[in-house]
């Protein structure tokens, strides 16, 4: 009799909703094999995916995120975060040989800095990233600006002038010709903030908007040949977004085409061949983010995205490094 009561207790417990907790990638396998090498971030660690196997490149202590390849298979750069600041670190493709590229820790808390979204120019010589600026006259205003510095070390150059109190400018994409595409946040007269993709030819130059305020587009990813721009455009009202792609002629964007809508596609990345795309999104309507693959996004009728991982909890604000 007591056993039956215990059984009822356990049965009710089994009826509870069980939420995915996110297995470590290196204790999992990809569902399909993608060409090349991909590096993903989860739970503060970086993992390399080759074929269907994951290998840990770092531990979690550095709270690693946002891996980006250095052109020419020369390793990768990632952000390492801690309380109050983050730094960018270069490392070999296997995670060894780490070299600090920024020095954002300071004795006084307010003098610390954040560095995120590392991207290396196609010639492999210049590092671009988002770096927070503090206005001493307006101590609450902390906004990201896009900066660059020689990858081998050297002076910092400020490229963009962010709008105050908007969060600023992030997600740089250096262009082969020396310019830059990035996401800029602005604020309208009603206090609504929105993102636009901007094109800028040089540091401090006046830029031009590539997308409209209403489209609210961010997370640009340029194809290796420089002719296609993938991006995420947000419908804030519905808390949904879409993965879209548009042609790019070096000055303007062509019509945008939606490749995938909710649930919450994020952080698109082109394959090295420029013919495939991967992105991050939950499975179903909700939950942790998994890796998805668009085998032929440029087809007239693209296939449905293919789920690559299951049971993981990939960092959605960290685009995959694909080389």
């Amino acid at each position, binding site marked *: 009799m007591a056993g039956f009561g215990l059984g009822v207790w356990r049965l009710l417990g089994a009826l509870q*909703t069980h*939420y995915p907790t996110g297995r470590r990638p290196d204790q999992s396998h990809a569902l399909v094999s993608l060409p090349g090498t991909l590096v993903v971030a989860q739970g503060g660690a970086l993992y390399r995916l080759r074929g269907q196997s994951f290998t840990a490149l770092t531990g979690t202590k550095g709270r690693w995120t946002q891996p980006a390849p250095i052109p020419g298979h020369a390793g990768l750069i990632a952000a390492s975060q801690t309380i109050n600041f983050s730094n960018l670190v270069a490392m070999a493709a296997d995670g060894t040989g780490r070299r600090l590229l920024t020095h954002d820790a300071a004795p006084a808390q307010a003098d610390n800095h954040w560095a995120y979204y590392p991207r290396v120019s196609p010639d492999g010589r210049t590092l671009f990233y988002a770096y927070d600026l503090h206005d001493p006259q307006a101590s609450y205003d902390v906004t990201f600006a896009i900066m660059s510095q020689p990858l081998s070390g050297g002076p910092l150059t400020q490229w963009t002038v962010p709008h105050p109190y908007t969060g600023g400018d992030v997600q740089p994409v250096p262009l082969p010709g020396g310019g830059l595409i990035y996401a800029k946040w602005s604020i309208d007269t*009603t206090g609504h903030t929105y993102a636009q993709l901007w094109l800028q030819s040089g540091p401090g130059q006046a830029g031009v908007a590539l997308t409209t305020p209403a489209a609210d587009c961010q997370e640009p990813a340029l194809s290796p040949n420089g002719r296609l721009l993938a991006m995420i455009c947000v419908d804030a009202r*519905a808390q949904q977004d879409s993965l879209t792609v548009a042609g790019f002629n070096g000055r303007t964007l062509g019509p945008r085409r939606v490749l995938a809508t909710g649930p919450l596609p994020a952080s698109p990345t082109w394959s090295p061949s420029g013919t495939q795309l991967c992105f991050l999104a939950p499975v179903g309507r909700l939950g942790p983010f998994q890796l998805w693959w668009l085998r032929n996004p440029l087809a007239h009728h693209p296939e449905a995205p293919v789920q690559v991982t299951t049971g993981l909890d990939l960092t959605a604000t960290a685009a995959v490094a694909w080389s």
Partner: protein
Amino acid sequence: MSGLCGGFFYFLPVVTTALHDTGQARPRTDPGGRAAGPGGTPAAGQPFTVLLLGSDNDKKFVAAHILTQTMILVRVVPATHQVWMLSLPRDLWVPISTGGSAKIDAAYETGGPSSAISTVEQDFHVHVDYYAWVGLNGLVDLIDRLGGIDLVAQMPVLDNFYPADLASGDPYGYRRVVVLPGPQFDAGILSLEYVRSRHGDLLGDIARSKRQQELLVDLRAAAHQLSLADLPSLVSALNGQFHTDLGLGQVSSLLPLAQGITSANVHELVMLPPDFSYATIDGQDALLPNWTAINALVARAFPSR
């Protein structure tokens, strides 16, 4: 009989919480201090209005005297599955039901939920059927119990003066936080940073209110997965960090209602200039209400008393 016992012990945390934290008596008083009577609860299926209250209840504050940094009026129309949310800015300078004028976040401090409700009812000419209060840790624990929450951060959120109370235990300390923009799946602490940070916004508390409404929509989406069997662990997560005058039966009946509401049917309202103007009163930064504009805004979604 043994099966009933098993079920009873499974739901024991719910029963305990039902006795302590839900169905809380709310002695109502009108501005003159007279008992307002039971007021009557809406019949099942009828529209109702809930006042959601959120507090920084860290060690800076005495438990019985905390402010409500978050006040959101929610109107639910079950028949059409429509929901309206209106954030009341914490700095709005209003007559308080217990006497005098102050920022609206002080109404709760002076007399708990009944004072907060009476203040809202008298100033905004609405009828509040229920209230629900949640503390900071309760929100964090709730989201963690749900396994995390999907949200779209609308902008990079940077704050050099974010309270370090939960991270360090120092209620007066500050730390730097950053929430990167875009879609993401966040645990409770990061979600809280997104909706609690206010210094990096031009509109400060107003912009934060908009993010809080977004979080409520995201929480509603997460509630799609819940069932009655989840109640005990949810109740455990919210232990002492949540109280309401909704009865347990009403709480459980809201679960299927939440599941039937789509994002398109959730209407988010916030006050912006000219609904108020900026002022300094008694040395405090405050918002002076433009009652004509505010009454028009409120009337869009909330029937007058």
